[in-house]
């Protein structure tokens, strides 16, 4: 889901002066928009964020004045290539299923001595969360073109998948919405925004496989935690805590559905 509030305010302002649009059919409009998206694919500004992340990965910081170069993302210490395509995964050392961001928090804590609260409590794209976004951009770029491969035979992963599925269909709040309200049917859209059907493999790979992403509308790079947080905001629920189990569970569910599909990360979005 995109952000309807600001979007609507903008639409009101803009469509009022762009009457010629009205003459076009919706299909024609989508065709034009697809042409626009293709033109942006070359030169994805995520590269700039990834470049920052690469520097951060190799930068000595925190109370322990260490780099993250020994961080184990599941494929061994320091191995980044293809790592995020195989996440979330179960980590023996923490005894938990972790997504990329919670795993990075573990590495920051153990290697650098940085308190995870500094990430959790930071505002989006500020302080440690801004650094997190840069690290994520760097790491997911190294999985671009790789296939999603999460191990649902692992009992902890399987449990998270089941929890994620329950969360996906969980309707609540003043608008009675769940993830499935918008992402549980084929070929639907909100305003002009097409919605992937996340129940299916095709939909899951289109959605899960193209986040994290750079959003041209606000010039921001969004991690998966950020993406999920904003989905819940628009569902009008309470706010999910950064890195909480529900966010991991949903990621396992989506990655599980997307298993075998090719990731295109970082994506580029409206």
């Amino acid at each position, binding site marked *: 889901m995109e952000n309807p*509030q600001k979007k609507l305010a903008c639409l009101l302002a803009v469509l009022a002066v762009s009457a010629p649009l009205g003459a076009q059919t919706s299909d024609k409009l989508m065709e034009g928009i697809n042409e626009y998206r293709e033109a942006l694919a070359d030169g994805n500004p995520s590269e700039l964020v990834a470049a920052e992340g690469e520097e951060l990965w190799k930068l000595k910081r925190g109370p322990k004045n260490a780099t993250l170069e020994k961080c184990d993302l599941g494929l061994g210490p320091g191995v980044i290539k293809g790592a995020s395509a195989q996440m979330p995964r179960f980590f023996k050392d923490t005894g938990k299923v972790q997504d990329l961001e919670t795993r990075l928090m573990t590495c920051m804590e153990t290697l650098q001595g940085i308190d995870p609260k500094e990430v959790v409590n930071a505002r989006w794209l500020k302080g440690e969360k801004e650094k997190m976004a840069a690290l994520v951009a760097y790491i997911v770029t190294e999985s671009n073109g790789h296939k999603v491969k999460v191990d649902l035979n692992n009992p902890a992963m399987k449990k998270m998948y089941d929890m994620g599925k329950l969360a996906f269909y969980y309707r609540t709040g003043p608008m009675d*919405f769940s993830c499935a309200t918008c992402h549980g049917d084929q070929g639907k*859209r909100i305003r*002009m925004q097409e919605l992937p059907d996340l129940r299916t493999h095709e939909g899951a790979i289109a959605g899960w496989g193209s986040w994290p992403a750079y959003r041209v509308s606000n010039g921001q790079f969004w991690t998966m935690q950020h993406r999920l947080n904003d989905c819940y*905001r628009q569902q009008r629920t309470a706010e999910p805590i950064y890195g909480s189990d529900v966010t991991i569970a949903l990621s396992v569910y989506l990655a599980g559905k997307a298993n075998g599909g090719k990731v295109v990360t970082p994506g580029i979005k409206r």
Partner: protein
Amino acid sequence: MKKISTLAVLLLALPSAWAAGEDTYAEFKAMMDRSFKTTGIAPKHRMYQLDFQKACSQEEQPAKAEIARIEAEQMKTIRYPADGKYFGDWKQGEKIALSGRGLTWTDKTPHDNGGGCYNCHQMSRHEVSYGTIGPSLLEYATVRGTNEESIKYTWGKIYNAKAFNACSNMPRNGDAEILTEQQMKHLMAFLFDPASPVNKK
């Protein structure tokens, strides 16, 4: 290796309902409880489900009897305008239909919510940016007619869509106090007024 295959067989042998069995569900509820927090105007208790919300939180629709029970219960919530007047100003209604504002934790006040109608419905020919989760409402007055039955049905549908379709995707605008009675009257005018863009060819 032998251990693993034994485990796999065991998992396969378990009844299919195990995945969402009672223990798992209790664990799920505990997970939801520790995963959310109050932010701004969005309190944590928004995560506690109403009965019908729970019944509609599955991959499949609930059983027929359950659906009938929910619809009957939701029907009782509908309050028709006390003054018997159903129609406000369609121009105000159009603004409400276009606005998707309100009720998120980044919204400042609980007032001035939008109806978000265009998020899901096509409503007029001049607004091409519309969603498709709900049916098109183009020429609503012509398609649905303007008799009393149609007017009362439409009011009820806006007020509480669950009274007509237990697990509808549409919010309960009146029952959940998303929109005020006056705002719903404006939406009614937007749908029925012959001068409204909804009813323009």
